[in-house]
């Protein structure tokens, strides 16, 4: 086969697939952010720390209680989601009437505190978390060696992303949620408990971050800094996709993963900045993001 842009097709396919896998992480994380922003109008800067907590709680379950990966996928989102609910009830709900900026600053502060606490307790080098036995090894696809675990991550992310999109855009519960953000007083008058719905939505967004953390633990080092490293990129994804747009964050998450993967082949030095370059271009052309509605 002839080379494509000077790269053997096998290598290129391999890179595309890797990009897709990274995109899965971006999509899952930005989805949680989009849900929280779209429905609550909070720019949740704690998201990265909550993702990191997810990975750490999975590690604690395994090393302190002997609870393995599969149970962690279930238990971690619930426990970390509960801490999210606690944060929402005690702090965030006081800010809803104020400007977005206050929520952003508060969540940013909370993120720094959580990160500091974990760093004090666990140090900065990170902790090991192995790939579960059932997903070890890999498959030779001809053009690349595909670790089974990465394949699993892509499938799970797609399922979770589409399910979330479906619930919010296509079900009755979702329509209540969307209505509540537009006109809470009206929805309340129908007998729906809007504050509780908002609390649960925030908890769900946090649970998504924690779930992603569990998925990430076997691939990346479980470290207090893992959320801080990723959160800025994920915010860029959300901005490009359009703040609050569910489908936008899913599609741009996967798309940017692929673009970043290709940059790593053609010009690796720029791979950490390419997303921000795209962000600037998108903001200049379409300030509300690719899929965003002007508010």
């Amino acid at each position, binding site marked *: 086969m002839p080379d494509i842009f000077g790269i*053997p097709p096998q*290598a290129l396919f*391999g*890179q595309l697939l*890797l*990009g897709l*896998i*990274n995109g899965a992480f971006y999509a899952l994380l930005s989805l949680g952010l989009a849900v929280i922003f779209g429905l609550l109008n909070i720019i949740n800067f704690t998201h990265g720390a909550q993702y990191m907590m997810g990975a750490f709680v999975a590690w604690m379950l395994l090393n302190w209680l002997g609870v393995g990966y599969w149970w962690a996928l279930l238990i971690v989102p619930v426990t970390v989601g509960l801490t999210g609910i606690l944060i929402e009830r005690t702090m965030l709900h006081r800010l809803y009437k104020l400007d977005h900026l206050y929520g952003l600053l508060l969540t940013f502060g909370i993120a720094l505190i959580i990160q*500091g606490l974990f*760093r004090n307790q666990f*140090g*900065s*080098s*990170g*902790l*090991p978390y*192995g*790939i579960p036995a059932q997903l070890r*090894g*890999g498959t030779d696809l001809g053009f*690349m*060696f595909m*670790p089974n*675990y*990465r394949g699993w991550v892509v499938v799970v992310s797609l399922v979770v992303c589409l399910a979330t999109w479906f619930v919010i855009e296509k079900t009755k519960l979702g329509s209540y949620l969307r209505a509540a953000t537009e006109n809470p007083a009206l929805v309340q008058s129908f007998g729906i408990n809007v504050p509780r719905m908002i609390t649960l939505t925030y908890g769900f967004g946090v649970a998504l971050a924690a779930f992603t953390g569990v998925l990430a633990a*076997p*691939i*990346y*080092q479980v*470290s207090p*800094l*893992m959320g801080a*490293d*990723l959160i800025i990129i994920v915010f860029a994804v959300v901005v490009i996709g359009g703040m609050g747009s569910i489908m936008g964050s899913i599609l741009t998450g996967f798309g940017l993963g692929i673009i970043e*993967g290709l940059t*790593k*082949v053609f010009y*690796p*030095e720029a*791979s*950490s*900045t390419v997303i921000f370059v795209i962000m600037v271009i998108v903001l200049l052309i379409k300030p509300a993001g690719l899929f965003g509605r002007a508010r």
Partner: protein
Amino acid sequence: MKRLKSVLLGAVALAAVAAAPAVAQTNVKIGVLSDMSSLYTDLAGAGSVLAARMAADDFGAAAKGLRVEFVSADHQNKADVGSNIARQWYDRDGVDMIVDVPNSGVALAVNGVTREKNKVFLVSGAATSALTGEQCSPNTVHWTYDTWALANGTGKAIVQTGGDTWFFLTADYAFGHQLEADTSNVVKSLGGRVLGGVRAPLNTNDFSSFLLQAQSSRAKIIGLANAGGDTVNSIKQAAEFGIVKRGQSLAGLLVFITDVHGLGLDTAQGLIMTEAFYWDQNDASRAFAKRFAAANKGIHPTMVHAGVYASTLHYLKAIEATKSAADGKAVVEKMKATPTDDPLFGKGEIRKDGRKIHDMYLYEVKQPSESKGAWDYYKTRATIPAAQAFRPLAEGKCPLVGG
């Protein structure tokens, strides 16, 4: 009555004056400048402060008429923050010596300030061999290791055992470039070949693209010219992609024991690296590690901690001899003139260019079945004698040498 009182007071005052010369005190203030909040915290950080304090205690400073004070600060891995702290410490807080400073960029900045203020800078955490090369200073001693020693130790050993084709995965900043260049030179000088390399941005999360490129290069050795979290993630993901199982080997050019602890033996086994110190070397190092870990949340000492301890100890000996910490250049001259001898590095010397000379070691990470417990991680593959471990004096282009 009044008279009696003043006589008494006078007598007391006289007695106090008479007693004072018996304990003529020299004051020393030591600043531990380190990374207290980011990726190098475990390998240096609070452990370095602890190591410096342990050195003062073990030296018996108080009994020898030395009053040692400590301050510490976080340089946040930013050269401007680091040099500002150094300037403030020297100008305002009366600090006489700065020790540690992981991160080559920050260390080079502090190196300049220290020379300007004629104080003392003892480097343990930073790697760049420029500190004893073109940027060497009469006020600086580079204690523990440097990029040349790492390249020489690991590179040589691997090429000599058949790893003659290399591909580099390099952190895209000064430290990575220097380490790649130093190692390439060693590989080529021994008849090996460098097939290619890729430069990854600092703090990359996902190395799989780069690892695939390394894989398709078909080089026998993938040299990791990076550090901290980047090294850890690249090793972890190499295992995931079965790179080692499929016949290529990883060479960690800068790996600390805290990284191995973070990776776990399952992932890190078989990795070869060069270090200046391992806690389980001899009775003295074990005794030190036991005391150290007890006060440091169980984290065992890295070679950086050992270097902070040993360099502080040697510094205090020089202060005892010179009886003053004021003239940094004179203190460093005294340090160079005195052969070094401490429980962790044994006997050694400090060269004219400020390079501390001691043996280096080539370690291999144990298999999980060989390890007897937490922190039992290394077996020694080879000892690199002091005379060969560091860059020859004449090759460094240090202006202090020659003439």
